[in-house]
C-alpha cells in the first residue's frame, strides 16, 4: 500500500479544482459556462373523491403502524412493447427485495393489491386533467391510451403505473422567456414507503391509486432560479384550477439536470420548491467533478479495458478492530471482502458535493442494489480511518496493491457478496465514462444520493386490461367552459390592483385571487388592501401561530362579511385575524367578546377627546408635543377599534390639540 492519503486535504484540493462555489456566491455566467440545463416533472394530486382505477376513497391517510393486513410480493422484469428489457428493471431485479404491503381496509381494495383488473377510469379525474391541460395550451390527444410504466421497486403492487397522455406541446411564460411543455399525463399515485432495510421493503397502500397529473417541461431552464420560477408557475397554475389537492405530499417535483459533457440526472421527490435552486446547483457541480475524475482516470489508465479490480475474501483476526459494524458483521457470520481499485488513489476522497465524495457514490449503490445497510464499507480514503497502518499493510499484501491504488473493505451476507462486487466494479467503470444516467434522491441539505438507474422509454407497455378512451371535440369544449382565469391574466389583474409584488407568491400559492375578487365584489373593499391583509398580515400570523385545524381561507370572506354587517371599521381586522386563525370554528360574536369589543357611536367616542385633553397636563409634564396625542389615542383605542377609523380619530385628536395650542 502506498503512502497514506490525507482524505480531508484531498477533498479540499479537489473542491478547488472543481471551482465549487456556494450558490449565493455563484454568478449567472458560471451556469452558462457549465452548460447548465434543467427540465421539470411536476406531480400534482387531483382533488377527486375516489381513486383513479378503483372506487376506494382518495386522500385518506393513516398512520404507518395502523393497518389491517399485510401482503408480500416480489417483482420480475418483463419486456417492453418494443421487445426490450429496461435497465432499471434489470437493476431492480438484481436487488432481490421482499416487498410487504400494509393494508388498511377502508382505503385499499383488491384492485390496489393487483388481485382485480382496473375499473373504468375515474372521469372526474380526466375532466380535471383535461382542464389543466387546456390551461397549459396543450394539444389534446384524440384518444387516451392507458399505458403501463414499469416500476420494479415495488412502490406499485402491479409492478407498473397506469398512466395516459392527455396532451402534448404547450408553453408557460416566465418573467424573461417562455418554457415549452413536453406533455401532461394522468397517472395513479404510488405507495408510501414505510421502511427499506436490507432485503425488506415495506409500503403503505393508502396513497396508492390517487389520481395525479404530471407536467413535463423541456430542459430549457438555464439557471437554478429559472427552474424554481418554472416550478412555481406550474404549481400556481395547477392550484388556480381549484381542482387539485394541497398539503404535504400532494405536489412533488422531479428535476432533471445536465451540464455540457454530462448526462441527464433526475432528482426525485423534491417536495418543497424552495429546495430546487440548491439541488440543481449542486448537481451541476457534481457532474463537473465527475467529468474531471473521468479525465484524470483516462489519463492514468489509457486502455480502460485492461482496468480490473481485484476482490479477496479476508479472514484476518478482527479482534483488534474496535469498529462496531465490522465486529457485529463478523459475529453474525457475514463475509468480509477486500477490494483493490487500481489507479484510484485520490478518487475515493474526490469532492463531488458539499460534504460528499466519490466514495459516497459507491456507498449509495451498495445500499440500493446490493441491499447493504450503511455503513457498508470502509476504504483507504476515509475521513476517519478505521484501520491502523499495520492492518492496512496486511491487506495490501493480500491484494497485491500498488501505490496509486485505492482499497475498499465491505461486509455482507454470503448471498449478497457477488452483487456487491459487481456493483463496486460497475460504478468504478462508469467513472471512466463520466456521469452515469441515474435518478437521485433529494436531501434537505441540497445534496443528493443514488436512488436507481434512470429508466427509459423501454419500460412502457400498453395496458391490455383497458380500451382506449376517445376525447371528442364537444367534450373538450365543455371542459373549456370550466376553466378559471389564466394565470398570466391573474398576474395582470394583480398589477392592475396595484398589489405590491412581494404579495404575488403568497396569493398565487394559496390561490387567493378568487377570494380577493369575491370579497371585493360583495363588499366593495379595495383589492390592494385585501391582498396585503392576506400576504402580509395573515402570512405573518401563519409564521407565528399554530392553529388547531388547518385555516380555511374562506374564513376571511366571512370575516369581512361580518364586519360589513356590523358596520365595523377595518382597523379591527388586525386584532380579529390571529384569533380566527387559531380558532377557525369560533363564532365572530365570540371573537368580538374576547376582544372586549363594545359598540360606541362616533360622537360618543369623540366626546371623550376634550376631557382627556384637559386631564393630560395633570398626569404628565412631558413637553413633547406628540405625547398628549399618543396618550389620548392609547386611551381611546380600545373603544374606538372597529367603531371609527383610527386614522380619522387621530386626525380629530390632532386637530383638537392644535386648536387648544392656538388658544
Amino acid at each position, binding site marked *: 500500500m502506498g503512502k497514506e492519503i490525507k482524505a480531508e486535504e484531498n477533498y479540499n484540493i479537489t473542491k478547488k479544482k472543481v471551482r465549487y462555489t456556494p450558490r449565493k456566491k455563484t454568478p449567472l455566467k458560471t451556469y452558462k459556462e457549465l452548460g447548465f440545463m434543467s427540465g421539470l416533472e411536476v406531480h400534482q394530486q387531483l382533488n377527486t373523491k375516489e381513486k383513479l382505477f378503483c372506487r376506494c376513497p382518495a386522500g385518506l391517510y393513516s398512520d404507518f403502524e395502523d393497518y389491517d*393486513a*399485510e401482503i408480500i410480493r416480489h417483482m420480475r422484469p418483463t419486456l417492453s412493447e418494443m421487445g426490450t428489457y429496461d435497465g432499471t428493471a434489470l437493476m431492480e431485479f438484481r436487488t432481490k427485495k421482499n416487498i410487504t404491503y400494509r393494508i388498511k381496509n377502508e382505503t385499499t381494495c383488491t384492485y390496489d*393489491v393487483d388481485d382485480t383488473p382496473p375499473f373504468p377510469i375515474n372521469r372526474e379525474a380526466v375532466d380535471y386533467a383535461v382542464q389543466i391541460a387546456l390551461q397549459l395550451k396543450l394539444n389534446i*390527444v*384524440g*384518444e387516451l391510451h392507458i399505458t403501463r410504466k414499469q416500476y420494479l421497486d415495488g412502490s406499485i403492487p402491479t409492478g*407498473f403505473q397506469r398512466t395516459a*397522455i392527455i396532451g402534448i406541446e404547450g408553453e408557460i411564460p416566465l418573467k424573461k422567456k417562455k418554457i415549452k411543455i413536453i*406533455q401532461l399525463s394522468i397517472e395513479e399515485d404510488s405507495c408510501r414507503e414505510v421502511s427499506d432495510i436490507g432485503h425488506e421493503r415495506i409500503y403503505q397502500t393508502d396513497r396508492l391509486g390517487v389520481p395525479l397529473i404530471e407536467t413535463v417541461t423541456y430542459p430549457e431552464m438555464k439557471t437554478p432560479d429559472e427552474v424554481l420560477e418554472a416550478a412555481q408557475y406550474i404549481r400556481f397554475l395547477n392550484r388556480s384550477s381549484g381542482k387539485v389537492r394541497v398539503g404535504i405530499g400532494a405536489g412533488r417535483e422531479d428535476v432533471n439536470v445536465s451540464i455540457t459533457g454530462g448526462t441527464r440526472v433526475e432528482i426525485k421527490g423534491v417536495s418543497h420548491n424552495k429546495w430546487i435552486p440548491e439541488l440543481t446547483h449542486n448537481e451541476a457541480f457534481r457532474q463537473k467533478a465527475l467529468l474531471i475524475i473521468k479525465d484524470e482516470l483516462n489519463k492514468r489508465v489509457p486502455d480502460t479495458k485492461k482496468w480490473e479490480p481485484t476482490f479477496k475474501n479476508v479472514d484476518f483476526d478482527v479482534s483488534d478492530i474496535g469498529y462496531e459494524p465490522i465486529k457485529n458483521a463478523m459475529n453474525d457470520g457475514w463475509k468480509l471482502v477486500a477490494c483493490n481499485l487500481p489507479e484510484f488513489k485520490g478518487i475515493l476522497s474526490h469532492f463531488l458535493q458539499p460534504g460528499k465524495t466519490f466514495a459516497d457514490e459507491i456507498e449509495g449503490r451498495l445500499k440500493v442494489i446490493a441491499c447493504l445497510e450503511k455503513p457498508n464499507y470502509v476504504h483507504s480514503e476515509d475521513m476517519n480511518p478505521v484501520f491502523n497502518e499495520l492492518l492496512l499493510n496486511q491487506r495490501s499484501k493480500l491484494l497485491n496493491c500498488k501505490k496509486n491504488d485505492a482499497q475498499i473493505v465491505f461486509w455482507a451476507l454470503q448471498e449478497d457478496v457477488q452483487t456487491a462486487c459487481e456493483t463496486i466494479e460497475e460504478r468504478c467503470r462508469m467513472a471512466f465514462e463520466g456521469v452515469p444516467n441515474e435518478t437521485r434522491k433529494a436531501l434537505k441539505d441540497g445534496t443528493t444520493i443514488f436512488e436507481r438507474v434512470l429508466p427509459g422509454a423501454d419500460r412502457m407497455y400498453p395496458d391490455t386490461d383497458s380500451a382506449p378512451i376517445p*376525447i371528442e371535440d364537444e367534450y373538450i369544449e365543455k371542459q373549456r367552459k370550466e376553466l378559471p382565469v389564466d394565470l398570466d391574466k391573474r398576474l395582470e389583474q394583480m398589477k392592475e390592483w396595484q398589489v405590491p409584488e412581494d404579495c404575488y407568491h403568497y396569493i398565487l400559492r394559496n390561490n387567493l385571487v378568487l377570494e380577493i375578487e369575491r370579497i371585493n365584489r360583495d363588499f366593495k373593499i379595495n383589492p390592494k388592501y385585501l391582498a396585503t391583509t392576506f400576504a402580509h398580515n395573515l402570512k405573518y400570523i401563519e409564521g407565528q401561530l399554530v392553529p388547531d385545524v388547518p385555516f380555511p381561507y374562506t374564513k376571511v370572506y366571512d370575516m369581512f362579511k361580518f364586519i360589513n354587517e356590523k358596520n365595523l371599521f377595518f382597523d379591527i381586522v388586525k386584532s380579529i385575524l390571529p384569533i380566527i386563525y387559531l380558532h377557525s370554528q369560533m363564532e365572530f360574536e365570540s371573537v368580538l367578546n374576547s376582544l372586549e369589543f363594545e359598540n360606541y357611536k362616533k360622537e360618543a367616542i369623540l366626546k371623550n377627546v376634550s376631557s382627556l385633553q384637559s386631564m393630560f397636563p395633570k398626569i404628565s409634564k412631558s413637553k413633547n408635543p406628540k405625547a398628549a396625542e399618543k396618550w389620548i389615542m392609547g386611551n381611546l383605542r380600545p373603544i374606538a377599534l372597529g367603531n371609527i377609523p383610527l386614522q380619522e380619530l387621530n386626525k380629530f385628536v390632532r386637530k383638537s390639540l392644535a386648536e387648544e395650542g392656538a388658544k
Partner: protein
Amino acid sequence: MIDIFKGYKGKAVEILKKFNIRVWSDTKVKTTRGDFSGIILPRSENDDDKHIVLKLVTGYNVGINVGTITDMKEIGYKEAHYKIPEREFPFTEGQPKVKLFGTGGTIASRLDYRTGAVIPAFSPGELYGAVPELADICNLETEKLFAVFSENMGPEQYKTLAIAIGKEIEKGIDGIIIGHGTDTLHHTAAALSFMIQNSPVPIILVGSQRSSDRPSSDAALNLTHAATAAAKSDIAEIMVCMFGPTSDEYGLLHQGTRVRKMHSSYRSTFRTIGDVPIATVTRDKITPIKQNYNRRRNDKKVTILPYFEEKVAMLYYYPNMQPDMIYSLIDNGYKGIIIAGTGLGHVNKPLYPAIRKCKELGIPIYMTVQTLWGYVHMFVYDTGRDLMNYGIIPAENMLPEVAIVKLSWALGQTNDPEKVRELMLTPIANEITKREPYNGYLVYQGGIPEVEEFIKKVRK
C-alpha cells in the same frame, strides 16, 4: 400480401392510404389540435376506425382522431419485435426429467396487436429466458399441443392430452406439467383424473392469474412450484398447483377432482372444496397435508381411457324452473343430465313429469348441490324421496363441474344406465369421498374479529 395497415379499417385506413403511411412508420402528424409525432402502431381489430395510434418518443401511446388530421409525413420506419429472449434450456446430469405440455393461457404470453390483449408464448427457450430458476429444479422438455384460451378447451383437447401424457409416462418421464388457462383449469383437471388412471408420476396442471407480461405476475412462482411438485414430490396424482395465499409465499396442490376456481381475478382463486388440499409447495419443499394419496412408483404403467360423450348437459336449478328446460334437452338428443340442485339436492314439482320422461328414455340424471360444500342427501325431505323414485341419482359430494365431466366420460364408454351408474358412483380420484373432514369447510368472512386478527397476522 402483407397487411401494412395492421388492424386499421374504414376511415383510418383511408387516411393512412391518402398520406401513404404504413404501420411502424415514424410519422409527423398535423392536426387541428396541434402537431404530434411518433411511430404508427398497429390497432386492435375491435377498436373503432376513428383513431390512429401513435407511440411518442417518450414511450407513451396516444390516439389521434382521424377527423382532425390535416397532414401526415413519414420520416422513418421502426418495426418492433416483441420476443421473450430465448436461451437454450440447460441440461443438468442427475436432475429429474419433466415434460411441460402447453395448451395456451397466460403462463407465458406476449402482446397481441390484433386484439390488444395478450397471447400465449411458449418454448423451453422462452420459458427459460423468463423463469431461469426452472433449470435448478429439473431438466425440462416442452411440447406445445395447442394454443387456445382455456374457455376453448374441450373433449378433443382432453383426449389428445391424455394420450400424449400416457406416451410420456411409458417413455419414463419423472413428472408432467400442463400449462393451462385458469378459467376451465378444473374441468380439464377432472377430465384427466378420469382419463389417466393409476399414474406412477405426478401430473400437475398450472396457470396464472396475472399474465407473465406483468412484473407482479404469479406465473413464474406457479411454474416453479409446479416444477418442484412434478420433479420431486412423491404424490402421483392429477393435481392443480396454484397460489395458496395472495402473497408470494407458497402454492397449494389440489386434487384434480376437488378443486374449483372461486374468484374471478384473485391469485389464490383455486380452492379445494369438500376436503383439504393434498399438500403445500414452495421452491424447495413439499409438505403434505393429507397422507392417503397415491405414491410415486418406478414402473411405467398407466391406464389411459380417452372417452368422452359430448351430449351431456348441466342445469343450474333456479326457483320456478319450467320442465321445457329438460324437454328441450331431450329433444336435442342429450344423453345425460347433471342438475345442480338447491340445498341437499332439490328441484321444484313442475319438473317431475320431465324427469320421469328422462327415466323412460334411459337418460340418466345425477343430482349435485349448488352449495358446493356438502353431500346430496335426498332422504331428508319428501321432495328428495320423490325425485329418487322418478329416477334422479344422488352424486354424493361430487362437484357439479366434476359430475358433468365424469358423466360425459362414462357415457363415452357405455350407454347402459346400470354400467354408467356403477362408473359414476365408484370413486376414482376422490371425486366422491367417504367422509368430509371437519376442517375442510372454512368460509372466512372479513369483519369478524377473529378473522381480522388472522388476516393481520397471516399474509393471506
